[in-house]
C-alpha cells in the first residue's frame, strides 16, 4: 500500500507490503505531499523478527511468533523515527499524558507500570487524555519541546493525534510509597538514554545524542516511586507542578 500520514507536524509517505500499517494509521492519514518517504521490504521484516527475538532474550522474557504484518509496523516506525531525527524529533519509550494543555511523559523499562500509572491519571482527571501510551515522538519546534501522538502506541493502541508542549518527564520506579522528586538530567541520563530510540547508523546516532543533550537542557525531570494506589496520579501531577 502507498499512503501518507502526518505525524509530529511532518508529512511522511509510507510504502508497505501489508495493509495492517494503513489500518493502524487511520487517524493520521493525509493528502499532503510527503516531506520524506519510507518503504518496507521483506528483509526489513526479517530484521524486525530477529530484533524481537534478540530483545526478548535480552530482557529474559518469552518471545512470541509475531505475524509479518505486525513486524512490518515496527519496520515502518523504525524508519520514520530515523527520518524524523532530521526534523529535530526523536522517539521515546514512555506514556505521554495530557492535562490542562500540557504533556507529561512517564518512562521506565517495560513492566514497571507506565500503563497502570497512566490509567490512574485518566481516572483522577476526567479531562486528561493519552497522547501516546507507548512510543510518542518528542520534537523541538522553535526550541520548545513538544510531545506528539503517533499511531504506534502499544498493545492498548491508545493515542491521540495531538501535539502538546512538554511540561516534564517523570521516570517511574516501583516503591512502597508514592514519592516524586526532581532530578538533574545528568543523574538520570543513562536511564533516559536507554528509553529512547538509538539508531545504529553513526550519523543518526550522533544526531540522536545531540537532541538528547538539548532535551536534557530544556526539560524538567523527575523520578517517582509509585505503588498501586491510584493517589499516585495526584502525587505525580502536584509534584511536577510545584511552584
Amino acid at each position: 500500500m502507498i499512503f501518507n500520514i502526518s505525524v509530529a507536524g511532518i508529512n511522511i509517505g509510507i510504502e508497505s507490503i501489508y495493509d495492517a500499517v494503513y489500518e493502524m494509521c487511520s487517524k493520521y492519514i493525509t493528502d499532503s505531499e510527503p516531506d520524506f518517504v519510507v518503504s518496507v521490504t521483506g528483509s526489513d521484516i526479517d530484521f524486525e523478527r530477529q530484533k524481537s527475538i534478540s530483545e526478548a532474550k535480552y530482557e529474559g522474557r518469552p518471545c512470541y511468533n509475531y505475524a509479518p504484518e505486525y513486524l512490518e509496523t515496527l519496520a515502518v516506525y523504525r524508519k520514520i523515527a530515523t527520518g524524523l531525527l532530521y526534523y529535530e524529533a526523536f522517539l521515546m519509550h514512555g506514556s505521554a499524558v495530557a492535562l490542562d494543555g500540557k504533556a507529561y511523559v512517564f518512562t521506565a523499562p517495560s513492566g514497571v507500570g507506565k500503563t497502570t500509572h497512566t490509567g490512574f491519571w485518566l481516572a483522577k482527571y476526567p479531562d486528561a487524555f493519552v497522547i501516546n501510551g507507548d512510543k510518542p515522538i518528542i520534537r523541538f519546534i522553535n526550541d520548545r519541546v513538544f510531545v506528539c501522538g503517533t499511531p504506534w502506541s502499544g498493545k492498548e493502541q491508545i493515542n491521540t493525534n495531538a501535539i502538546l508542549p512538554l511540561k516534564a518527564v517523570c521516570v517511574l520506579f516501583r516503591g512502597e510509597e508514592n514519592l516524586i522528586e526532581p532530578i538533574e538530567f545528568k543523574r538520570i541520563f543513562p536511564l533516559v538514554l536507554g528509553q529512547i530510540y538509538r539508531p545504529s547508523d553513526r550519523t543518526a546516532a550522533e544526531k540522536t545524542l545531540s537532541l538528547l543533550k538539548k532535551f536534557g537542557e530544556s526539560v524538567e525531570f523527575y523520578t517517582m516511586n509509585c505503588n498501586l494506589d491510584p493517589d499516585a496520579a495526584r502525587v505525580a501531577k502536584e509534584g511536577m507542578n510545584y511552584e
Partner: protein
Amino acid sequence: MRLRYEFTIMDMGDEFAAVPVGEDASKFHGMLKMNAVSADILEQLKEDTDPATVHKYLKEKYPDSTDDEIGNALAPFLNQLLKENLLID
C-alpha cells in the same frame, strides 16, 4: 590495544558519558559514565596503541605525578576495561 567499540564521548558538565555509535551500538547495549581523566584516556584508546604510549601521554599531561602514581591509576583502569570486554588487547 584499542577500544572494542566505537564511542561518542559527551561532556555532561562535571562528568562524561561514552555512548556506542554505528554498528557497535547493536553489540554493546549500554554506556559508560566517567570523569574527565577516563574520558581523556578513552580518547587515546580509540586508535590502536599500547599501555606505554598512554602512560607517556599521561606523564606529559600530568608532569607532577610520578611514574608509579600514573601506573597505579592506569593499570586498574585498563584492567577494568578488559574485564568489561571493552578493550581489544
